[in-house]
């Protein structure tokens, strides 16, 4: 009988009961030889046997249900990604407007000299360091973009990236505006103030947006956007996303290490170039990493969302989070797929073998 086979298998397994299978019981009448040869009625015997079988399984083994994240649990919902993209774009434009406004309020270098900064005391300025930062930043963004293209659930991940980026830039707008720090170093040449020239200001905004705010493209002329550092935000955020949405095997860890190195070098070079105060970089790193962890913990733990003792939902953006992540019920598994659906057999997916079984084992 099949049941005894299963029960024999039990003897070989370890104490954890690592054969994790959910046996679906069906009511089937088994034609069995009746014991003792006396009894006549077949049906109650077999159902009784079935019940005994169930009890035996329940008693002797631990079964845990493994629910595969089906596509219904991770819906794409590209329109939500579109909204997040608009949100990020809106905040980027608002940031550039704010930088233009703040540039008017930056005190002149002669009036307000650069503030004392511990890092600047020890490390003198190196001119080309800022280009290193920006090159690193562009490499990281490109790497992340390529990785994102190959993710299977790119709608969900993209949504998260845009939302977090928008949030971080929004916070940056607030801190930039309320208090204006002086320039960190005498080398900085700020664009002249246009007191009431709104036409000129609009042109500046467009120039900044088109250049992405990078000095390599020649659009980093405005001052005043010091607390906190947008370059640090991008470097840290892209690295965190790259690390989070890629497999965790040995080869990939080298890749993570490389990206981490790029990110760290970029951040240090900002300070070496005396382009930001140390406190700008520290605060930016802190806020970025905390927001990232916060969002992903909320998103990965379904139990948290329903719990009444979840203080994570006391943030002001909780309703946006609920809107974006309402239908995402499980952590996004690390699966890759071609961006344009080529036949599946062509692509030997390295990550497929590290699907949820691996992650469960890691845990």
């Amino acid at each position: 009988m099949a049941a005894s086979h299963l029960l024999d298998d039990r003897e070989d397994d370890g104490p954890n009961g690592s054969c994790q299978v959910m046996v679906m019981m069906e009511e089937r009448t088994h034609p069995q030889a009746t014991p003792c040869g006396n009894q006549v009625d077949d049906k109650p015997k077999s159902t009784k046997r079935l019940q005994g079988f169930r009890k035996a399984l329940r008693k002797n083994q631990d079964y845990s249900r493994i629910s595969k994240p089906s596509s219904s649990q991770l819906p794409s919902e590209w329109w939500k990604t579109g909204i997040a993209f608009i949100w990020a774009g809106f905040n980027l434009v608002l940031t550039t407007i704010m930088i233009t406004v703040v540039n008017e309020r930056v005190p002149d270098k002669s009036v307000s000299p650069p503030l004392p900064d511990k890092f600047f005391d020890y490390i003198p300025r190196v001119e080309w360091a800022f280009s290193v930062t920006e090159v690193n930043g562009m490499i990281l963004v490109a790497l992340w973009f390529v990785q994102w293209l190959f993710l299977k659930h790119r709608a969900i991940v993209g949504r998260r990236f845009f939302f977090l980026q928008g949030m971080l830039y929004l916070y940056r707008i607030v801190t930039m505006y309320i208090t204006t720090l002086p320039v960190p170093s005498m080398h900085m040449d700020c664009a002249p103030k246009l007191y009431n020239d709104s036409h000129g200001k609009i042109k500046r905004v467009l120039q900044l947006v088109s250049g992405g705010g990078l000095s390599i493209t020649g659009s980093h002329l405005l001052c005043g956007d010091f607390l906190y550092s947008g370059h640090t935000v991008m470097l840290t955020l892209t690295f965190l996303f790259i690390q989070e949405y890629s497999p965790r095997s040995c080869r990939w860890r080298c890749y993570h290490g490389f990206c981490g190195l790029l990110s760290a070098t970029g951040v240090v070079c900002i300070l070496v170039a005396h382009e930001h105060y140390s406190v700008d970089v520290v605060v930016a790193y802190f806020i970025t990493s905390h927001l990232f962890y916060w969002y992903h913990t909320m998103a990965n733990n379904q139990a948290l969302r329903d719990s009444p003792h979840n203080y994570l939902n006391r943030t002001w953006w909780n309703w946006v989070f609920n809107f974006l992540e309402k239908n995402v019920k499980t952590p996004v598994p690390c699966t890759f797929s071609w961006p344009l659906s080529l036949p599946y057999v062509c692509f030997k997916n390295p990550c497929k073998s590290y699907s949820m079984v691996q992650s469960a084992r890691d845990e």
Partner: protein
Amino acid sequence: MKEVRLWTCSDVSDWLTDEGMQEYMDALQNVDGPALLKLSEEDFKASPLSLVTGDSGRQLLERIETLRFTSHMKAHKNNNHEKSHHANGHAGIALANGSVSNGKIPNGIPKNGLHPEPIRILIPSLPEQERTPYPTEWFKTGVAFLYALFCFLTTTVVISVVHERVPPKEESPPLPDKFFDLFDRVEWAFSICEINGMLLVGLWFTQWLLLKHRSIVGRRFFFIVGTLYLYRCVTMYVTTLPVPGMHFKCSPKLFGDWEAQSRRVMKMMAGGGLSITGSHSLCGDYLYSGHTVMLTLTYLFIKEYSPRRFWWYHWICWCLSAIGIFCILLAHDHYTVDVVVAYYMTTRLFWWYHTMANQQALKEISTGNLFSRVWWFGPFQYFESNVRGIVPRNYQLPFLLRTMTSARVKYSKLDSRES
């Protein structure tokens, strides 16, 4: 269920099915009740039983032992046996601690089925801590207190160091600040802020004394406040902001005079850094604002660990806190960004810590728990590993008051469960 001795073959097979041992059914199909009771290990060594059994019949023999006892019990009951504890002794063996013993009495079945004395079963008494989900571990609270003290001391030292680096007002005028543009300075506002702060701290301290699980809550408070002041040390130190207003009178700089500096540190610690006590004479500690931290944190703790019904109390504390923070800015004593960053850090750390403490799943390192990547996860686990569940809002008079009033029985609300 009828007695084992009266069982027929079909009863035996039914029993085997119930016990989940259908594999023996075919082999024992001609076995009835008494024969079942007579089964022993030798029977399992010979066929046909040796072919079906996987564990040389151990499990089945255990079950048969249980059957034997139950049949004993029934027999004794029928004989009106006087020693009732004997029956209990039997039952106890099968049920001690929820785990069935291996069913073998050392000397086999007693000769006439009677034990002269009851069998004592020792239930291992768990240590106190494992019993309650909210153990009072004052040692850990002491560690947290020392940590907070260390952080306060470091902050004072760093303020004293930073004071030397603050650029003079003439060289570096106050930075442009939106709030200062809108509101002019009001002189007495800072005293309001400090009075509010002292009130809130006093209220929180009284409330803490009345909590039942004060060691756990105290531990959390000290740890959070210590960490916030530690972060403050870092941000204060790396970049020095100039004074926010020309009204500031900073103490003169003592270049390299360590003795005088340490005396300043002592004075500041003794006064708590408040200007009311005259110990707020050092400049440079602007990013971020310690006053805001204390005002916000005490309010958060007060609200968290007091009954929900006392909404008026929460509102009063909220007003105290908000007015205090507003007055800091009104007095032009801190930049707006200092206050905003301080509020953000305090609330985030508080909510983060408490969410982690309230969810068992977040106390372990796993790929889904990104909160475990934070640097203070180790100390957090140390403090909160034995706390299982959400600390309930129970109240209890502190020890001294309890001993004084323990003469008569009280049915007060103070020693009650608060949902």
